[in-house]
């Protein structure tokens, strides 16, 4: 039993120090500034006409900011938001942008909603996307 406990403890220590497991919170910086900047350009070219220059939405298009954003997305995972964007947006030509562009747009959405940036780009194929929930500031 003692040996088993030692192995479990070792695993926990490794997990807590591993970048994969350490970055488990959306407030830990899950995208890079550069990526969000690319996302801003992509937003202007692909999203602005419907969601507005200030992301505040239009006559029948939702705001992507603040309370409106959190009302729709709070408690849901980044993977879910990414899938929504990837499969449904832009509304008239869904799935028409490249994977990197959708990733960059997701980073921009996080930036304008005041989630902090970090050192690494957000990657759609990262397993952590499923576990990163959109939650209010701790």
């Amino acid at each position, binding site marked *: 039993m003692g040996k088993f406990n030692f192995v479990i403890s070792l695993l926990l220590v490794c997990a807590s120090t591993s970048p994969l497991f350490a970055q488990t919170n959306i407030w830990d910086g899950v995208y890079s500034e550069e990526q969000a900047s690319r996302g801003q350009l992509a937003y202007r070219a692909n999203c602005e006409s419907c969601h507005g220059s200030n992301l505040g939405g239009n006559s029948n298009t939702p705001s992507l900011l603040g*309370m*409106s954003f959190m*009302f729709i997305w709070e408690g849901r995972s980044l993977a879910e938001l990414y899938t929504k964007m990837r499969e449904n947006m832009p509304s008239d030509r869904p799935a028409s942008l490249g994977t990197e562009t959708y990733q960059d747009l997701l980073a921009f959405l996080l930036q304008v909603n005041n989630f902090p940036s970090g050192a690494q780009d957000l990657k759609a194929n990262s397993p952590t996307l499923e576990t990163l929930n959109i939650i209010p500031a701790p």
Partner: protein
Amino acid sequence: MNCSSLHRVNKFYHFLMACMLFIFSTMAFSQLSDIAPVTDDTLNNPLPGDWLSWRGNTASWGYSSLSQINTDNVDQLQLVWSWAMDDTGAGEAAPLVHDGVMFIPAPRGVIQALNAATGDLIWEYRPGITEALEGSIAAAVPAEERVQSVMAATAYAGVGRGVQKNIAIYGDKIYAATENASIVAIDIRTGRLVWETQTANPELGYFYVAGPIIADGKLITGISGCGRYKEDVCFITGHDSESGEELWRTSTVARPGEPGGDTWDDLPLRFRAGSDAWIAGSYDPKTNLIYWGTAQAKPWARAVRGTDADALYTNSTLALNPDTGEMIWYYQHLPGETQDMDEVFENILVDIDGRQSLFKMGKLGILWELDRVSGEVIKATDIGYQNIVNVDPVTGSVRYRDGMIPRIGEQIDMCPSTSGFKSWRAMAYSPQTSAMYIPITLNCELATFGPTERELGGGGTGPVRRINYPHPDAGDNLGELLVLDIPSGEVKWRFRSRAPVNTAALTTGGGLVFFGDWDRKMYALDAENGEVLWQTRVTTSAQGFPISYEVDGRQYIALPSGTSGASWAASLPRQLASELKRPRNGNAMHVFALPEK
């Protein structure tokens, strides 16, 4: 062939090309140098072969009295010409025709004049690119100081999806309203800019999607982009058609301290949003009144905007004096509306047994008949698809059903969805059948309304968690052309389609009704009984405002196609009829006629 002979051939070729260009431009110019100015009389009593107002006449009937194409021969219709419009925005074109020339409002402010019989381009106006007319007001302003900038080059950049629904024609000018919140006058002969005047700051969210109409010689235009909280509200303006000078401005929201100002409780001006005037109005020369609709209050839900009060003049029909902007009467269809159930749409003016009526229908599918002199309700006919309100058919008073006033965060089950049963796809009236032909989208929604920031720059529609589902009365069909007898309101017949009906309706003196659906189909039906007499398919979704006109004794039917527009226009078919596919591009005009003998 040696070098010198090659050189001679080249010179001859250039000479030939120059001659052809000269001949072509002379032909084009000569055609439009002959075009007759449009007067008040010609606007108010249009020739059958012209289409001078966005819905055919100032009463917005959507009806052409031409009858060369009729129930006996419509199955012989052939494509005569087609024209691709820019794919830089939503295609919802309402073309005009005068003296054999078609004027097309394309996305992002582009206007094109074509020979309506052949489809040859005569001129085009491109904002920020086309030069001002020599000697005009605009020419006196340095190009860099003019309002208009080059519009966005893609469909998803820029403002408001680049929609340019309708334009107006008067005198020797074409008039349009832009996504930069300005109004422009274009020389009818050359397509050059004559004047431009900005009515609002686009940085605050203001823009136009509906173009002007002409009433008593004045240019009347309603603005959109009213959702964002700011220190001002939306409005309808009257402009001098020659100079572009603003003559009057009437707010579509009651300001604090003014009549109706207490209908927003104590909300300050900055939090009184909505009431977009995003559909062009109608004009009655007899009453000398314009009739204009206003949209819902914003944010959509009462609980989100912070008042249960009526919120004048949202969701109303306004009767304004075109010379002064004075509000002669208003009728608020849905006081304190709370689910995005817009009543802004077209106003159809019909005299019935000497009574001057106005008919209109909003998203809920209630056909309103108002007295257009007094503004009183004559009749309210609920077509029976909605589950949100009870309406008194005599008084028109509306009461919300139990549980149908949304609370923040609580889901309600509502029909229609926020897309509405009826939207910008204008209905048409036929004096032959005394009926209204109404494009309908059948669907419902599980909706949960959420909060938004009450601060300058905030507001908007407010968020909604939405789950769309088919209407229980409609099976698999999302589309319907509903035909109501006037004035009884009884259903004459209905046509259903898997895809939403996606164009305005056009009725004709040939006993026909034309319209199209999201699935690229365009139809001609017997207006009396709904029998499908002709059908074709076009580039992408049928979308826009069909018209009919005549050139040199030949009748034409012009049917527009297009993409983009309201987000739900694409999302509803994709979610509820996912087997239907359409191209992403394809804004175009398709013109049909009978074979030449």
